[in-house]
């Protein structure tokens, strides 16, 4: 019997070690697997690379990880927050690397990794500082930048419903980066809010098929 439910956050995060590259779902605070990120902060990890749209923002567990010095590099589109953050301080001191990626290019690069597309051209950022050093080619009269797939060792995502095969649905704006990150990591770990019996999720409404998911932890335990 396939059963991807894990009984504890510790089991969910098993194997994440120093130097790991980790995707974290969410847009702003919505759709971010806070319980998993918070628990990650208690492991004393070092040299992490974090891929998350708002890495550096002032919500969720990432600022704590940054303040701990656990993170060497963030890959994101929007590290800015309304107030000064631990990220700002470390960045100004040159103690954390930032790879700034336009949000659509970030999403497409993650999707590309999951879809077996090693590289693609996009007009986004052509002629700007964010295309510096990148290959540019004119296609159909438009300058396009060559961008590469972006994968990770682990993806920490948040879902709404989950069954034991790992099939997932998402709630409202909580979908955002979660489905593509699920496809782009070696080990995808989902924090889900509702456990469902196998066969009760309508096949047409499942957003992430279970084969993309390795572990599911239900928030609040086995509920």
């Amino acid at each position: 019997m396939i059963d991807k439910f894990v009984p504890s956050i510790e089991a969910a995060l098993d194997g994440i070690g120093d130097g790991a590259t980790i995707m974290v779902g969410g847009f702003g605070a919505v759709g971010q697997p806070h319980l998993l990120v918070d628990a990650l902060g208690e492991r004393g990890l070092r040299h992490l690379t974090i891929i998350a749209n708002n890495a550096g923002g002032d919500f969720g567990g990432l600022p704590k990880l940054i303040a701990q010095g656990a993170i060497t590099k963030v890959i994101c589109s929007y590290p800015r927050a309304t107030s000064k953050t631990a990220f700002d301080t470390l960045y100004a001191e040159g103690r954390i690397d930032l790879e700034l990626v336009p949000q659509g290019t970030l999403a497409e690069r993650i999707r590309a990794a999951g879809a077996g597309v090693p590289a693609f051209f996009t007009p986004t950022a052509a002629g700007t500082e964010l295309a510096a050093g990148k290959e540019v080619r004119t296609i159909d009269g438009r300058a396009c930048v060559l961008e590469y797939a972006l994968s990770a060792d682990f993806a920490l995502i948040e879902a709404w419903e989950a069954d034991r095969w790992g099939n997932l649905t998402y709630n409202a704006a909580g979908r955002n980066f979660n489905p593509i990150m699920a496809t782009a990591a070696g080990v995808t770990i989902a924090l889900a809010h509702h456990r469902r019996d196998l066969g009760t999720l309508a096949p047409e409404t499942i957003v992430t098929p279970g084969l993309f998911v390795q572990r599911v932890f239900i928030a609040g335990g086995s509920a």
Partner: protein
Amino acid sequence: MTALAGWSRRDMADRVAADIPEGWAVNLGIGLPTLIANFVPIEREVMFHSENGILGVGPLPPAGQENPWLINAGKQPITLRPGAAIVGQADSFAIIRGGHLDLCVLGGYQVGANGDLANWSTGRAGEAPAVGGAMDLGAGAKRVWVLMEHAARDGTPRLVERCTYPLTALGTVSRVYTDIAVIDVTPDGFVLREAAPGISIEQIAARMGAPLSPIRD
């Protein structure tokens, strides 16, 4: 240069809203552009898009009735209107980058007479830059309009011959709405479309870093 009493920020948003026809799919940038939705009457059906995968953004929720799972690109609580659809981030940016938005309205630091847009970075050293979806919107939407103050607080023009700030997208802006004018960006450069009440073309042109052509018939 004396500041002119043109349109208020609400007037500016209202002025843009008046130009958005029913049926368009429209993305509104964070900050001032977000206000535009408040001035589109609910019966004029415009499909507002938010980067985080929402089509059919509705009016602001009443205080106390916010749904924590529904925010816009500026992380503010929103509602959905009937007809709304939710997609993931790759599909949301496929909408943007695939040319499926009729319009996006962005804030700006500078707009060039060649349609270049600078709105994501002042280039200050040591300050972490942030770009979000601005470059995707600037390159991908069918139309890019900019909504911004006509000049900086110290009077420095923001409508310029060529942008000096880091670029967001090249040759993409087709119209600029400011506190004193509505200006088209054409192959011949800036062309006045409308002046705020009581403001002359000379006053507008004096506050620009590039030539302004008069309203065309």
